């Protein structure tokens, strides 16, 4: 279309579609699950600490201090690279990215670069998302800067505060090729990535600011726009949708899209041009001589491979093929590490299907409801508590044993699903054991015919119309079974109830 003599204006006038959007991502993922920062012993997860409490001479860039590379960060970074199908280089090196900014204690950031061959932790990978391949250009380790906090009403009298608690937090930066076809694939990729880093035990994506992304958006053949300052994946999608629409509007009016960096304004839900023009930065990259090159030999790669946990897709496949769990349930269960771990801890060959059902339909809902009734964390200080919840939300409310006994009871026919739901609710609310709850609440199935017969008879007398239609319409019988269930608060054995109803109405 760009070859069209009429140009963009003519294309718009004739109602032709705009060129297809081209989208690439740069994702920064904090390695929150590590014990320490990338180059010093301070905590990798700084949340819940007072300003500038999580610092030491190294991450403050004090004169004379040297970075000491966190070996576990290298191992975990390598695992992420492998999970993204990347090639692992024989040795990695670090570089200094030099620029002045108050949140950068040394006025340079230690990062990785492929300046002298492939020396980042991974590169040239590819991952299948929604049927399309997304290329991974590079995976690199780097340190997070500190956090700037701006106070004061106007630009004239504002105060800039710096909290260095975050400075030096290990980050994995994942740079994709511009392969995304649209926002949907973007969303699925980010979900997949977020599940992956959680599953690998690298990052807790639920923590505020733990995963951040910048997007590059252009229309095919057009200039590239970088969008920064996007605080959540939810906003990322919105920002990209907005930016595509903005560029298409430009295009339809025959205007060229400027190559620039834009910021996402979350309040106004638009992208706005950033003050700094792209290409203005001069980073004077230097090899970081304080960190010797790290050799990653074949043996290390093999041992890391063997340490790699089952991937989310492998897990989903296992749930479906080994336990006959319906694919939709397996999707939900496998994508959450906490619940799938709980499932694997409590499952037996017999209870697996019911257990999956209980976790995905009942337990997840209960935990989510509990979480939303907590006061919303409004600052970093509250983040620590929120994290504790997130670390162990399910086992906070129910034990593995309790869950197993519950699923066993349903699977063996001793308890109806409905009753199980009530029992679960009670167990999570009171912390009582399964046996306590089931005896107190009298939730065992009623399969005694003489006991059920009375209920069946009263239902038939209350529902004369339905009873009459029962012989001609089998659905009516199911309706009556439901009524019996209602009366017994779900405790009636459905099989016995059905037989009794048939006997009374059809004379079987």
């Amino acid at each position, binding site marked *: 279309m760009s070859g069209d003599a009429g140009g963009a204006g003519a294309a718009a006038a004739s109602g032709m579609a705009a060129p297809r959007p081209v989208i690439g991502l740069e994702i920064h993922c904090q390695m929150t699950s590590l014990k320490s920062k990338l180059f010093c012993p301070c905590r990798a997860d700084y949340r819940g600490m007072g300003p500038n409490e999580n610092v030491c001479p190294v991450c403050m860039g004090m004169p*004379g201090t*040297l970075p*000491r590379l966190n070996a576990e960060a290298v191992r975990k970074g390598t695992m992420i690279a492998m999970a993204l199908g990347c090639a692992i280089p024989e040795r990695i090196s670090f570089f200094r990215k030099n620029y002045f900014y*108050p949140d950068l204690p040394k006025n340079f950031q230690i990062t990785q670069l492929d300046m002298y061959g492939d020396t980042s932790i991974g590169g040239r990978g590819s991952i299948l998302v929604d049927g399309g391949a997304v290329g991974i250009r590079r995976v690199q380790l780097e340190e997070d800067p500190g956090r700037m906090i701006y106070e004061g009403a106007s630009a004239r009298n504002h105060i800039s505060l710096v909290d260095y608690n975050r400075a030096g937090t290990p980050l994995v930066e994942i740079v994709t090729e511009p392969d995304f076809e649209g926002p949907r694939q973007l969303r699925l990729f980010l979900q997949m990535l977020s599940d992956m880093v959680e599953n690998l035990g690298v990052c807790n994506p639920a923590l505020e600011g733990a995963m951040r992304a910048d997007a590059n958006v252009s229309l095919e053949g057009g200039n590239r726009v970088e969008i920064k300052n996007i605080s959540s994946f939810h906003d990322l999608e919105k920002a990209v949708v907005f930016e595509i629409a903005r560029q298409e509007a430009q295009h339809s009016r025959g205007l060229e899209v400027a190559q620039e960096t834009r910021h996402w304004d979350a309040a106004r839900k638009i992208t706005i041009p950033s003050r700094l023009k792209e290409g203005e930065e*001069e980073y004077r990259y*230097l090899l970081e*001589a304080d960190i010797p090159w790290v050799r990653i030999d074949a043996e290390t790669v093999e041992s890391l491979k063997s340490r790699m946990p089952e991937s989310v897709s492998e897990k989903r496949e296992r749930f479906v093929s080994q336990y006959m769990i319906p694919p939709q349930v397996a999707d939900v269960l496998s994508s959450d590490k906490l619940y799938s771990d709980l499932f694997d801890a409590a499952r037996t060959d017999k209870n697996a299907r019911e257990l999956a059902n209980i976790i995905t339909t009942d337990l997840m809902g209960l935990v989510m409801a509990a979480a939303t009734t907590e006061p919303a964390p409004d600052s970093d200080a509250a983040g620590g508590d929120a994290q504790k919840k997130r670390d162990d939300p399910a086992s906070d409310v129910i034990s593995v044993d309790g869950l197993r006994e519950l699923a066993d009871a349903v699977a063996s026919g001793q308890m109806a699903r409905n009753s199980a739901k009530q029992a679960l609710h009670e167990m999570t609310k009171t912390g009582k054991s399964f046996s306590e709850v089931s005896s107190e609440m009298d939730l065992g199935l009623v399969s005694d015919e003489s006991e059920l017969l009375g209920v069946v008879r009263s239902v038939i007398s209350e529902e004369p119309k339905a009873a009459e239609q029962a012989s001609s319409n089998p659905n009516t019988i199911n309706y009556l079974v439901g009524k019996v269930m209602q009366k017994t608060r779900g405790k009636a054995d459905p099989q016995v109830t059905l037989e009794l109803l048939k006997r009374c109405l059809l004379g079987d």
Partner: protein
Amino acid sequence: MNHSSIIRASALEYVRGVTSGEFTAEEFLSETLSRIEEAEARYNAYLHVEDGQKLLARAREIDRGIKSGQKVGLLAGMPVSIKDNICMRGSRTTCGSRMLEGFVAPYDATAVSRLNAEGGIIVAKANMDEFAMGLTTEFSAYGPSRNPWNTGYVPGGSSGGSAVAAAAFECVASLGSDTGGSVRNPASFCSVVGYKPTYGLVSRHGLVSYANSIEQIGPIARTVSDAALVLGVIAGRDEHDDTTADATPATDYLEGIEGGVEGMRVGIVDEMTEGADPEVARAAERAAGNLEAAGASCERVSLDMVGYSVPSYYTITAAEAASNLARYDNLRYGYDLPLDGYEFNSYVAEARGRFGPEVTRRMILGGYVSSAGHAGRYYLKALKVRAKLTREVADAFASSYDILMAPTVPILPFRIGEKTDDPVSLFMVDLNTVTANLTRRPAVSVPYAVSAGGLPIGIQMMADSMQDRTLLRAARALEMRRPPLPEVPD
């Protein structure tokens, strides 16, 4: 030994004397403190002297330990000093700059904690060129140090204060740092021994970085054996510095030091002797003769790449300096500079504008040579030169030589102020020393002679990586064979 002369003892003599009861650590320290008070007016070797009463209390503690037979460490209360770019907890570390005038280090450098652990008593922080950039100590923001052999002359640099202090008996030994000759050059100018270890042998934790890919902390002392003793204390793997070599268990560098040079092959580097001052060149020839008489074989060797070493050195060190010194943005240390009227960048620019001329020169140079538009012509080319030089030197050691020898500095010490306005001719003073740094090899300057005009001449020896003991053995052999040296005037 009477009290006025005990402080002339070498480190080994000190240890023998104090442990045998010939004198006490307190006596020795007290004499040293008096000497400092009296000598500093002339030499300006020190930027700050530690509190005398505290130091003396520490010395008495050592004395009690010696009396009761406890372990008092290899240094047994020996007064030592350290260059002011080495951090010591609770003490000012200015790097010879106004920018760090009020900076009190919150931690000990590894070299400092190791000195302390072996009973060393750190008496003072020594003067230096601002951020170790310079080779005369004239670029110190706190005034130049003066050469004890002639106070009108520069003592060399950048560890000039350390060399002066060791030469003038203001300590028994001192730690300097050597980025391109900063230990060896002042050692040569002041007629003391200056030792630059293999890169990675001594931890840089706590050494304020200037050009971190090549610099090392090294001892300055009055004898080769003294330097070996101190090296043994500070060397070895350190978990705070990932560049310290794995295969370096703390070794006794005195062991085998008297082994001589019988059978050693010594190369005299053409490129480092050809343009030398005639008196200096003659000293190098005589030194070769001394080694041959001791059983070594000496021959001339040409290392082409040495001719490109100085431009490569200045390009790399400037690029690294521009990065390492970027943190001095006046936010957390620096000048008392009010914020009004500045935004971030102009504030940083204002503060950085107050660095001295040499630091300013190298920061601007460093930013330029490593910038995207010019790195290919300068910084990356300098790295290539470094790689070629390293190959050439490695080949020379692998195929032919145990030791490469040359004068430490091609010229004699010069007058204070003589070269401050001529930075390029100053750069050439580094010609013989930068090769060891760029190739990460160990090198030492041994006092050899004093010129007709009464100025010291030092001889440099260099060995292959991790051959520090071979190097010390050769240096000791030269020290034993050299003609007698006059006493330093006072």
